[in-house]
């Protein structure tokens, strides 16, 4: 027999007859919601990192204190990256008799590679305009500070080194790493060609050479990997993520939220697929028995069904990918008012992921039942009630569960989140299953006490123990995913938003001296502002780990670690752990000051440096060695924008060293002059304005919450498919029941009541399970994965149970309506 042809014939027939509707719908929804999120996240991430890179003016900087080797620029060209250079140095600028020290930036064509340079308008059009290129040789662009200092106008001449340059533009805003440092001196922009003529570059002058790199993310990463092997000690690489841990943290959290939402629909689809495949194999029993009795081999049958499902999977997954691609475009258009830059075109990787998800889901859940099908005894052709293979054994679902789990861990891109969700769902399945079994047994006992419709409802549930359990568990899981997504995720996002309130700190004050604390407090009270909490800090260089000398060159293959080792650490001390920190290992020194000096390390940095709990680290603090033991590791929510330290010590052993203080505070935009005053009054204090960064994070939250609403549509749709699949999975039995009931003279209403009773019980159980599961899951995800507080929501129980009862009841009654209109004789003939 030609199984190849048979398999296609069967597929075509089943597809046309609508036998595969639930399967295909579930797959298409799972794949399209996954790809929608995939495509969209891809685009948002690219857009966000482009936006963030505007702060740098590039995707990546190679920074050096001597002219950079040509090889960097050459390699960048080879990788098809755009480059530009910036040479920065301080220089005296004169206007007639007046002199002013300013920061000179000599730039080449293409600057800035990312972001825009805004220039002041002219009298005719006073709006800011975007610079079209860089200063011509012989000209100079100045900033507001210098303009005010010299009272400059366009056309005035300035002496820079040995040459005279004509002022042509006023720079209002420039993308630069050091933007945000409010107490910078005046800055000017010149063309790099004027550098040598001006004779400005002399040996020993403080010059910084930047090579700006920009291009496709993948190429930039390639460049970075390569460059890191080439860097000398005087050179370093910087990307925006290195500079802004807040953005990195927010971006990662956003991605988690989104993949969580997409995964919810995958769980739902998995439940629908499991149900649909069960029905499929029941319906194909007879066909298989006949083919077996005609001499088909087991392997032959298995291969035929494997081919059947592979073809089906590919077709449905491709449909899903197409739909996902369309949907993310809609989403992008819908969200376009939230982004300043247009979203870049997504990569194709999400589509490939989508196809994989579809195949893994389908084969994971379909293989066990179809491999059961091949062992249908041929004898079944003689007696229909024998040889029903175990189509719903737990073992049959194990492969599917394993497939789903690996999908989760893979797609969550975070082992911890993946494992939490997978264990959550598996625990839920087991607990629901066991509870379901107990309840079904208990309820079917009860039926002897119940009368009329309830008796038959309960009898149905009791007889189909296994399929009732499968139905309640999958409905419960489905509803649970929906509940987690709506109620809990809403709570969590709200919580996230409230952590970045409108008055979140947007300025940092760094290197406040001890004798400035009081004057600073006076300064704030003068503005009727509460003085912000200050945090003490000493600087120290890591010299020894467990008595072994630390050599930066040992970290040469990890530039991130090397950079930390080369730089001074900011060491703070406190008795009280801040609310946005969470101990992940060891314990905090709550109870008084520990005898041995103790350190708490941020876990990411600990991993980078390869230090662990119990290690003793020695720092060189102002020339003296200070040793302390790591007694805890912390996770820090950098996106809270509060002052946080990688390394915090116990009180008592750092105080004697030269200390300075750090604080953060919120300055309303209207009061910004206050900060100018502050800079004037305390010239040594470094003021950093992070409003731009906060703005970006807030924008991201807004985008994510709206994107989730969109993705939720898929989840809802998947929820309906589960519901439909659950009802359809017992449809055949119901049609038969209806025929007998009516032959025996049951009125429609009597039959409907019995079913209604069954649906209400099933829905109620599912709702109960879902509420319990969602509550537990929301708590766990909030607490352990997203580090957000979760408040118990009693409404979940009411909503869960009501949604279960009403949903199952309505869809159940609609789904069974057709069985009431088929003449009983037709049914009995078909099945008899």
């Amino acid at each position, binding site marked *: 027999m030609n199984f190849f042809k048979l398999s296609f014939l069967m597929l075509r027939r089943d597809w046309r007859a609508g036998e595969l509707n639930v399967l295909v719908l579930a797959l298409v929804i799972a794949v399209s919601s996954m790809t929608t999120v995939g495509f969209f996240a891809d685009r948002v991430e690219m857009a966000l990192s482009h936006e963030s890179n505007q702060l740098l003016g590039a995707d990546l900087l190679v920074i050096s204190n001597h002219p950079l080797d040509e090889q960097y620029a050459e390699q960048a060209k080879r990788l098809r990256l755009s480059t530009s250079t910036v040479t920065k140095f301080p220089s005296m600028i004169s206007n007639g008799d007046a002199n002013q020290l300013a920061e000179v930036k000599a730039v080449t064509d293409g600057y800035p590679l990312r972001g825009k340079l805004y220039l002041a308008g002219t009298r005719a059009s006073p709006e800011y305009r975007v610079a079209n290129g860089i200063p011509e040789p012989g000209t100079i662009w100045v900033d507001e500070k210098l303009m005010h200092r010299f009272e400059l106008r366009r056309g005035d001449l300035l002496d820079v080194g040995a040459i005279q340059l004509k002022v042509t533009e006023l720079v209002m805003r420039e993308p630069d790493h050091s933007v945000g440092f409010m107490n910078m001196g005046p800055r000017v922009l010149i063309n790099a060609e004027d550098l040598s003529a001006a004779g400005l570059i002399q040996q020993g002058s403080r010059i910084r050479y930047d090579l700006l790199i920009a291009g496709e993310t993948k190429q930039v990463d390639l460049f970075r990997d390569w460059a890191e092997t080439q860097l000398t000690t005087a050179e370093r690489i910087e990307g925006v993520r290195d500079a802004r841990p807040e953005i990195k943290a927010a971006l990662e959290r956003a991605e988690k939220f989104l993949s969580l939402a997409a995964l919810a629909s995958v769980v739902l689809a998995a439940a629908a697929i499991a149900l649909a495949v069960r029905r499929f194999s029941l319906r194909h029993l007879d066909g298989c028995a006949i083919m077996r009795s005609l001499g088909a081999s087991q392997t032959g049958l298995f291969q035929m069904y494997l081919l059947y499902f592979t073809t089906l999977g590919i077709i449905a997954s491709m449909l899903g990918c197409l739909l996902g691609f369309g949907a993310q475009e809609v989403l992008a258009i819908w969200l376009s008012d939230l982004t300043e830059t247009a979203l870049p075109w997504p990569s194709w990787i999400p589509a490939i992921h989508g196809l994989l998800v579809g195949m893994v889901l389908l084969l994971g859940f379909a293989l066990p039942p179809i491999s059961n099908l091949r062992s249908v005894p041929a004898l079944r052709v003689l007696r229909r009630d024998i040889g029903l293979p175990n189509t719903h054994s737990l073992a049959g679902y194990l492969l599917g569960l394993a497939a789903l789990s690996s999908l989760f861990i893979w797609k969550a891109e975070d082992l911890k989140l993946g494992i939490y969700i997978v264990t959550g769902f598996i625990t839920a399945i087991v607990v629901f299953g066991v509870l379901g079994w107990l309840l079904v047994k208990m309820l079917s006992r009860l039926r002897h006490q119940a009368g009329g419709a309830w008796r038959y409802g309960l009898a149905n549930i009791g007889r189909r123990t296994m399929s009732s359990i499968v139905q309640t568990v999958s409905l419960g899981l489905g509803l649970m995913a929906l509940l987690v997504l709506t109620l809990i995720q809403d709570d969590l996002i709200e919580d996230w938003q409230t952590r970045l309130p409108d008055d979140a700190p947007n300025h940092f004050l760094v290197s406040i001296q001890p004798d400035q604390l009081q004057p600073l407090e006076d300064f704030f009270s003068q503005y009727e502002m509460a003085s912000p909490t200050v945090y003490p800090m000493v600087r120290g260089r890591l010299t020894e780990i467990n008595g072994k000398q630390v050599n930066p060159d040992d970290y040469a293959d990890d530039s991130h670690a090397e950079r930390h080792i080369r730089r001074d650490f900011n060491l703070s001390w406190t008795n009280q752990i801040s609310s946005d920190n969470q101990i992940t290992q060891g314990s905090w020194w709550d109870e008084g000051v520990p005898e041995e000096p103790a350190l708490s390390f941020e876990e990411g940095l600990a991993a980078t440096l390869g230090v662990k709990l119990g290690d003793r680290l020695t720092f060189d603090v102002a020339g003296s060695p200070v040793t302390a033991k790591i007694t805890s590791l912390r996770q820090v929510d950098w996106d809270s924008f509060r002052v946080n330290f990688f390394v915090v010590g116990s009180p008592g052993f750092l105080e004697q060293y030269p200390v300075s203080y750090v604080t953060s505070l919120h300055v309303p935009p209207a009061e910004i002059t206050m900060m100018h005053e502050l800079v004037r009054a305390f010239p040594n204090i470094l003021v950093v304005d992070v409003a731009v960064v906060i703005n970006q994070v807030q924008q991201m939250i807004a985008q994510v919450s709206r994107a989730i609403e969109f993705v939720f549509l898929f989840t809802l749709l998947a929820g309906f498919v589960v519901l439909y699949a659950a009802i359809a999975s017992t449809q055949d039995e119901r049609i038969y029941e209806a025929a007998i*009931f009516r032959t*025996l003279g049951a009125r*429609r209403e009597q039959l409907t009541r019995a079913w209604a009773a069954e649906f209400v019980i099933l829905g109620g159980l599912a709702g109960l399970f879902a509420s319990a599961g969602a509550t537990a899951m929301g708590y766990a995800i909030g607490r352990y994965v997203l580090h957000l507080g979760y408040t118990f929501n009693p409404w979940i129980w009411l909503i869960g149970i009501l949604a279960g009862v009403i949903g199952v009841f309505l869809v159940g009654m609609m789904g069974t309506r057709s069985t009431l209109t088929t003449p009983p004789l037709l049914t009995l003939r078909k099945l008899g």
Partner: protein
Amino acid sequence: MTNKMVNESILWTNALTKQVNTGEQQLTILQNIDMQVDAGEAVAVIGASGSGKSTLLGLLAGLDVPTSGKVHLDGVDIFTLDEDERAALRSRVLGFVFQSFQLLPALSALENVMLPLELSGVSNAEIAAEKLLDRVGLSHRLHHYPKQLSGGEQQRVAIARAFATEPKMLLADEPTGNLDSATGIQIIELMFELNREHGTTLVLVTHDEALSQRCARQIRLADGKLVQ
């Protein structure tokens, strides 16, 4: 057919015709069937496989609707009723025994027998059902499910169920078709015994000539038509 005869008949049909559309063509399964069954009579409907016996039985019970023609059951023109009214009539007048038993797998033997009683609102359904199962020799199988019973036992449950509501008329469609001959004989004996005890009218559909001879009268079907 005289009026007198019609009046004494518990069941009569008039030009009963059933056609089905099988896609390309129209198939006539039954054509102009006129028959009548008097109260208390035992009638066999006999014919080859595919001659339309089951279709006829289904129409007599109102389990399907004819293309044209009438069925009068217990004085009611059943196709002027709606589905629910026909169901109510069935529960009052008819009992069924099928070739493949048609028990509900969800219910125990006892519950299967109780089902028609409960559907017609009888109060002491359980006692009546137990009595009947005892009568068919299954008092030790009350709480077994169909799956746990042999074919003969399942058919006994079906017979008990058929007689539970004390129907005026029993319709049986090849009740021994799925049983071995020894068991088949026992089932037929049981059915005729109960039929006598209850004074029920019997319409027995079979392709078995010998079995049909146990009935007082035979109606022959060939290719959907009555053969005189």
